[in-house]
């Protein structure tokens, strides 16, 4: 995946997570809806944030096959 796609996805996930949290706080959406959005987008946000710097640095390779 290209870098810009991951970064776009991360920003989108960030907006959704913050939005869901804020909307849940002020009571715009129910607790269950907040939870469902967080369950889907929190992992995306975490992975995206971590991949922000490191994506595309290495070549793909075979798995570890022993010492």
């Amino acid at each position, binding site marked *: 995946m290209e870098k810009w796609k991951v970064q776009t996805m991360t920003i989108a996930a960030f907006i959704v997570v913050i939005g869901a949290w804020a909307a849940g706080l002020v009571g715009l959406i129910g607790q269950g809806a907040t939870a469902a959005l967080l369950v889907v987008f*929190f992992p995306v946000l975490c992975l995206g*944030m971590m991949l922000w710097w*490191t994506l595309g*640095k290495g070549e793909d390779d075979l*798995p*570890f096959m022993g010492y």
Partner: protein
Amino acid sequence: MLVELVIAVVMGLLFLGIHRKVIARIQGRPGPPIWQEILHTLKFSFKETWVPRTASTLLYVGIIAVAMGIWTAALYVVLAGGSILILFGIYMLHKMVEHGVGLSPGSPYAKFGGIRSVISASSEIPLFAVIGGIYFFTGSLMISDLVAYQADNGPLLLSILPAAIAMYLVILSKMHYGPFSIVEAKEIVSGYQTEHFGVWRAGLQIGDAIKTFVLLYAFVLIFVGQLGPVLLLVAMLALLVSLSFICAVSPMLSPYDSVTVQMVAICILVVWLGVLVVIG
């Protein structure tokens, strides 16, 4: 909700660090500082990252998100006082994470971890003794109902001790370095996690952290009841230290013995449930 989630991640990583520290001290080693797991996660997230050439890409990446997602859901269930059936369902779904992480990269070591995770399926069965016992005693499986029940009748820990022991066993079989953690034994490198490195491992760590936090929190809620924040933390820490103690003094069992021991535990619990039904 988001605040609790971040707290759960940080606290969970801290708990994992404390777990390592306690094990090290009991075994007479200095051990890493307790924030080591937090540093680990940060370190992993800056590492070079790619997907192995033989891997099934979507599963390889997606399963990390699943690991974090299901435990986020579990945290929400515990916080909202939902059904413990959902909580335990998620606990069993975690098995799928182990399979997915193990089988997706195509590495033989990871695959062995995945297959071991199939044969250690008996570690989940005590859950049904927990569910059965609790349902039999309180007539409800909602955590909110259980908390209310304990506020009236005192902690369930005393009245249904076997169920508490069963859940304790269940948590124990998911702790790192424990006697039942055959899925990540060192003779198969890192078990099912062997091929998940860098960012992927950091993601698994976050999932693990939420899992540890949720399981300890759920145990306290189900068997002791609602406590204040300080008391809650103390109870969770005490539980964790007792688990670490068992992990430190017991050797890792061979896959066969591990399954046998769990089976014996299951048989005892089944007999207990049978006696309950007969007497009740």
